[in-house]
Every structure is written in C-alpha cells, then in structure tokens.
C-alpha cells in the first residue's frame, strides 16, 4: 500500500438535516457518515459492507460529490473534490462514475439503449457524430449485448440486460473509478454471476478501480481486494480480503459473517450462530462511545463512554474497538 492512492478519503462527514413530525415541525440531524477515512488504490476493488442504513451509499455519493460533504476531504489528482463547484467538478465527472442497484430508474424510459450510451460520449466530447455508432456498438459488445439492442427501449430489456446497459453507459466516459452501489443486488442469482464476471473482465481490460457496495458477503469475498465494514456511519474494520474473512477482529464483523447462510445443509443445521439481537439503532440519535455497544456481546464499560480509536491491529488491518486495541479479544 505504499503507492500513491487513486483517491484519498480523509475524515469524511455527512449529516443530513431533516424535518420530523406530522407537519415537519421538528428539525433533526441524521448522522449518516462520521469521520470515515480510507485510501483507494488504483486497480483495486474496495468493498463496503454493513447493514442497511449504515452509510454505504452515502459514502459513495459523498466521495463523488453527489452529496456535499459536511466535513473532511476527498483528494483526487491533487484536488479536494468536496470543495469544487459544479462547473469544475464536471471536469472530473468523466473519471468518476456510479452504477446503481435499480437500473430501471436510472435509464430514461424514452431513450433508446444507443442514445443512453451515446449521450455521455457526446457530452464529454469523446466521439464525433460520425464515429458514434461504431463506438456504441463496441461498448455494447464490451458488456455482452448484441449490437441490435441499440434501438431498444429499457422496458424491452430484462433486469440483467438493463444493468449491462447502465454499465456500458458508465464505461462510455472512459472512467478511472466506478462506484457500484448494490449493482447486482436486485438481479437473479443466475444473472448475478454473469454481471460479476463482466465487472471483473472490464476491470482487467480497462484497469478500473471499483468501490463496490454490497450486502452479500460471499460475493464481496469473491471479488474484493480489500473490504471495509461499516456500522452506523462509521468504519468498524478495514482489511485485505483474506485477513477480513479469515481473521476478522471487530465483534460486528464476526457477527455479520456468522449470519451468512451457506449452501450446505449439514453445516447449516449444526452451526452455532452468533446472532445479533435487535435492530440497528437510529442514526438520528446514535449511541455514545462505540456505536455498536448496544448490541455488542463483549461490550465493556469504556465502550459507552469513549469512541474507540481507528488503529492498525496489524499492518494494513485497521479496526475501531476497545477490546481489540487493549488485547482483550
């Protein structure tokens, strides 16, 4: 990890100001993202996992400056993206793309597949009108769709095919970095594997860097270089893939891993699960100290008072937990 990272995220914070109550009479703050720091290396797949609402998408959006950061920095090519106005940001948009969970809502229903893929190329002046058709065809081929699909509309495609179109559109910008926000979560199992393979092939071909947001830990284990585990807006643990899955340190990571079902009846029946009780607490009023202390099986007195330090338990293996830091666990 000595090389200069592609992106450096420093102490990123995002708060949403919302209004509650039947008439919106009460102002409140959602602490969606709190002091998240990570480096993203060129060519790697860094995955973010955690329960719904823990801030994975907010991290992706805030890095891309699609949400204005409330604090912290995102350094890309020597610039702090969080400080750029929309006009300057446009110069970087091309490099930094996003693919969402629901491809239907991100495609304009009145645009053909060809138009959807061609639009960003024209916008960023990456092609001439004369070359547009060939380039679109090449992109369709890249994502494994027949070129005749260029004239189809989104509603004439299956979910997996639509996701391929969205990926082709992201690729059209010749990006360096793609946030895949639950990009395969809505797809059927047999289609998921196709899209994962496609993402891996494209990464190799174009040396892409991915921030891969997902809740399926088995998929994450399969495709990641490193994995970050989030809980209620904070990073709990960040480690190289094998370290995280073979020697997880944070109690929350351990609990998450033990909840994943496996395709082995014998093992499943006899398995001792460490089941987390209760739901994730509200981000409107996150617990003091370690945010996990209300559900942590080994919480100590200090945990509700002091925020655990984000520190390296081993080289490259970062964790925020008092028990780990003091060698209890």
């Amino acid at each position, binding site marked *: 990890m000595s090389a200069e990272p592609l992106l450096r995220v420093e102490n990123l914070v995002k708060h949403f100001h919302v209004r509650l109550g039947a008439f919106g009479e009460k102002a409140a703050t959602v602490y969606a993202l709190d002091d998240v720091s990570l480096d993203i290396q060129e060519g790697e797949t860094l995955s973010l996992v955690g329960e*719904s609402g823990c801030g994975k998408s907010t991290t992706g959006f805030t890095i891309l400056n699609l949400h204005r950061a409330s604090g912290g920095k995102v350094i890309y090519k020597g610039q702090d993206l969080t400080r750029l106005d929309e006009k300057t940001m446009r110069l970087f948009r091309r490099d930094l793309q996003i693919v969402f969970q629901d491809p239907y809502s991100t495609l304009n229903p009145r645009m053909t597949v060809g138009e959807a893929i061609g639009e960003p190329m024209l916008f960023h002046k990456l092609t001439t009108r004369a070359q547009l058709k060939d380039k679109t065809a090449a992109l369709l081929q890249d994502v494994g769709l027949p070129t005749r699909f260029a004239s189809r509309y989104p509603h004439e495609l299956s979910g997996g095919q639509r996701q391929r179109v969205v990926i082709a559109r992201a690729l059209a910008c010749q990006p360096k970095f793609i946030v895949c926000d639950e990009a395969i979560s809505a797809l059927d199992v047999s289609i998921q594997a*196709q899209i994962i393979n496609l993402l891996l092939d494209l990464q190799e071909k174009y040396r892409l860097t991915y921030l891969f947001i997902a809740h399926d830990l088995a998929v994450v284990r399969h495709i990641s270089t490193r994995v970050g585990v989030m809980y209620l807006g904070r990073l709990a643990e960040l480690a190289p893939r094998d370290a995280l899955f073979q020697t997880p340190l944070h109690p929350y990571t351990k609990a*998450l891993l033990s*909840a994943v079902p*496996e395709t082995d009846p014998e*093992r499943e029946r006899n398995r001792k699960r460490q089941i987390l009780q209760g739901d994730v607490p509200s981000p409107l009023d996150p617990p003091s100290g370690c945010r996990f202390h209300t559900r942590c099986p080994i919480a100590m007195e200090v945990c509700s008072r002091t925020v655990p330090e984000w520190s390296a338990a081993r080289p490259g293996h970062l964790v925020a937990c008092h028990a780990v830091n003091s060698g209890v666990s």
Partner: protein
Amino acid sequence: MTARNAQERLLDVKGLTVEIDGRRGPAVIVDGIDLHVGKGETLGVVGESGCGKSLTMLSLMRLLPNKIKVTKGTAEFDGRDLHKMSTRELRKVRGGDIGFVFQDPMTSLNPVMRIGDQLCEPLIYHRKMAKADARKRAVELLRLVGIPGPEERLEAYPHELSGGMRQRVMIAIGLACDPKLLIADEPTTALDVTIQAQIVDLVKDLRNKLGMSVVWITHDLALIAGLADRVVVLYAGTVVEDAPVDDLYANPSHPYTRGLLASIPTLSDAPTARLSSIGGTPPEPGRRPAGCPFAPRCPLAMDICRREVPKLEPISSGGSHRAACFAVNKALKAA
C-alpha cells in the same frame, strides 16, 4: 431432521396450472405443478424472480389478482380441495389452519390499522375469542416473535416499526391461530442477513414447538439449506427438481439446479477469479420455448429437449429425489 411423517400429506397439489389473460391472449404462468407437504415437514420452494412462486401460493388461497386464474389441477389441504371449497369454508381455513406471511409486509399490513387490531382480528374471527383474551394472546404472539415491549407495540402503526419488526409482526399474524401450515413467501428477502438469521431461527424454533408444516418460498438456495426438509426447484412455472434437502445439495441433478448452485459464491470455497454462470435469461410466460423450458440455456440440450417436455421422474432408488430432464434420465438408464 429427516422428513417426519412425510407420507402423511397435509397439502397435496397436483397438476396446478395458472393462466393469465394477457394482451397477446392467454399465457400459462404456472404449468402443471405437483407439490406436497407432509405433516410437520418444511418444504423449501426455490426459483428465480418470475418463475411463479408467489402466484402458486396465492392460487392456493384463491387470492389471485384479476385476469389470472387456475385452469387445471387440484390442491388438497387436509383431504379437502381448496379450489372446490365454498368461499365461506375457505375463509375459515385462510388465516386459521393455514397461516400466511406475504412477500411485502408494507402492502399486506394495513397501514391505517394498529398492530394490535390486526393481530386480534383473526383470533376473534377464527378462534371466536373475546376482545380481552385476543389482546392477551396478541401480546404473547409479539413476545414470541421477539418484539420488545409488546404491550406498547399493540398501539403502533406499521410505519412506526422497522422493516425487520414489520416482518416479525407479519409472522406473528401468520401464527396467530396455531396454523397447521405456515406459508411464507420470501419473508426475509428485503432484510439484512443479521435480521434474516434472527427470523430463520425464530421460525425453526416455533416449528419445533408447534409441530406445524411450513412452505418457505425463496430464491436463496443458501438460506433454505438449513431450514428445509425437502426442496422443490421451480423454473419457468414447472418443477424441475424435487429432493430431500441433503440429496439436493449433495447430488444436484437438473442442469438448472447444478448451474444455480455453481454460480453462488460461498464463504468457504477458494475465491476463484471468475464465477461459473448460466448464460441467457429465464423465458417470460407466453414466450416459453416448446419442449424443455431450460433448453435455450442448457449446456446438455439435445434434439429431443427442443421437441418434448421432460417429465418429473424419480432418479433415486427410494423415488424421493425427482428431476425433469432427459439427460439425467438417459444417464440413469445407461448406468
């Protein structure tokens, strides 16, 4: 946990066919399905989106949407055909001896009705309980499904609960009348793995305590592995494989089942560079090919597969493991 009393069938569905009156004329959605559930048995029904899982179950309760109807087949519950019962008889079974948990709790819970009233309704209707007794039982049920502070929760509206809690309320309603059979349609699909694990453990626990039968519908072959006694795999409205759970995972036979299992990454395999995958997509109803519905995606497809429909036939000596595939049957005969 082997299939208990598997011979004694509580639910026995034969040749169930469901059709839709579509714009391009009628189309078969569920194509002659056979299903059975023994007393105390848990049946997993697995298949991809659109293969007909929900409509199969809705048809049993005669809750099919407009323009969709059962055109063939029988569905016996405790010896009586659900499709031939009078509406009055059916109402007694629905929510009484058969409990339901629907796919989407937000649309199947009444948003303007308090949780407590929704729980009491079936108790008052089916079990003829007095209001006060029903409320006591409702508190018990909420406690049973692990909802903290059940007395206060009775007064809550659905939107005041988290997704996981709503799902548990749905299960509580499904269990309200001590059903003989619980039908759960993807009850955990929208939930986090942590909450999913809580609910799976809860249902296992209740099943063992109450001795009920369960039909658990899912697209997740991993989830069902530790839960089911037997698994039925659906593809394009047909049963392609039906086996005791251990057999299915140890000897998956139908090319679709094998492909599915191979394409699921696990936490224990060596992480390889590429996943094995099934090419193509499942056919939509009305556009299903002649012959075997899996033929366009099948690596083993032969000429006969494109002409004739393979029947679900026994492939194990006891006959409990069945598959609908010409290649599997040919290999068996050759052996």
